[in-house]
């Protein structure tokens, strides 16, 4: 009898403790999700900064950041117009839009040749993501799902001449960057024929076709030369990855990765 009483009391205690643990477990789930999102953002940014050590690399990344932010600004402006037409109060959204415009001006002032360009890029990109998230959450707080879908349709094709100019500039810089990389690979292969470089730069050949032609050149080498070529480009790739990891680590440990980013 006493034994039965003890067993039932102990099971009650265990159930109570399990309940406490469940409450404690629910709270960190949201923090874990945010941490995952931040980790994915950091991993993507780490990959993006790898090219910034090369000529045109920093310029490409800063132009792409301006382009992405401008796209969101145009869509935000259109969203505000649509919501005002539906008689929603948009003062909070307009405040965030003002901050996005200020941020765009800040990014435009960054000198790609500066030694701090990587740090500025990381910080300003983070700020751009934060503002985009704030705007999105503020919109979601105002409207229902059906209105959200309608708004997405309205703003989908928001564009401007400035945006198209950015796209053109970015494509041009990417071609110049890739042209330089072809030259450096030529130096390793020992090739001198510049037709491949010119054909790529003037758009006759796509990047994929350039890579295939480089493979053909490499296959004409001896096995040892081919392996040496492969080792050299692999080593260079790994070196850039490590350097980018170290840079991100440095920025995060000095609290610079999520700062104001003002140059």
């Amino acid at each position: 009898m006493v034994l039965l009483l003890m067993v039932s009391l102990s099971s009650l205690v265990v159930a109570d403790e399990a309940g406490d643990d469940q409450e404690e477990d629910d709270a960190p789930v949201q923090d874990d999700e945010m941490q995952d999102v931040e980790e994915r953002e950091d991993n993507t940014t780490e990959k993006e900064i790898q090219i910034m050590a090369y000529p045109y690399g920093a310029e490409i990344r800063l132009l792409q950041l301006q382009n992405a932010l401008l796209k969101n600004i145009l869509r935000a402006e259109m969203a505000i117009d649509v919501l005002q037409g539906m008689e929603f109060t948009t003062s909070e959204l307009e405040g965030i839009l003002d901050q996005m415009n200020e941020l765009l001006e800040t990014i435009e002032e960054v000198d790609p040749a500066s030694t701090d360009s990587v740090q500025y890029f990381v910080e300003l990109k983070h700020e751009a993501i934060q503002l985009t998230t704030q705007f999105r959450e503020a919109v979601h707080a105002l409207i229902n799902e059906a209105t959200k879908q309608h708004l997405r349709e309205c703003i989908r094709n928001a564009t401007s001449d400035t945006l198209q100019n950015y796209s053109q500039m970015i494509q041009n810089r990417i071609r110049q960057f890739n042209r330089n990389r072809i030259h450096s690979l030529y130096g390793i292969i020992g090739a001198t024929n510049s037709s491949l470089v010119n054909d790529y730069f003037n758009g006759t050949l796509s990047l994929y076709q350039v890579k295939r032609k480089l493979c053909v050149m490499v296959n004409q080498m001896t096995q040892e030369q081919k392996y040496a070529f492969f080792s050299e480009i692999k080593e260079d790739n790994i070196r850039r990855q490590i350097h980018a990891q170290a840079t991100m680590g440095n920025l995060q440990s000095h609290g610079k990765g999520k700062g104001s980013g003002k140059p």
Partner: protein
Amino acid sequence: MNKTIIALFSLILVLGSVFVLYSYLSQPTETEQQYDGNGSVSDDEILTELDDVFVSEDDDIELGDIV
């Protein structure tokens, strides 16, 4: 006699295990097999590394959806 047989059997077992373990550990890994003294590298491997050398022309930065 029985003790001798058991001891012999145990010894054979131990030596056999050591031999199997040694063979397994000294087997070249997949990477080492690819990059052995012949230095053979496939086209796919070269193309994979070349992907990291260049920037794709449709490369973009994502900031998330505004709505």
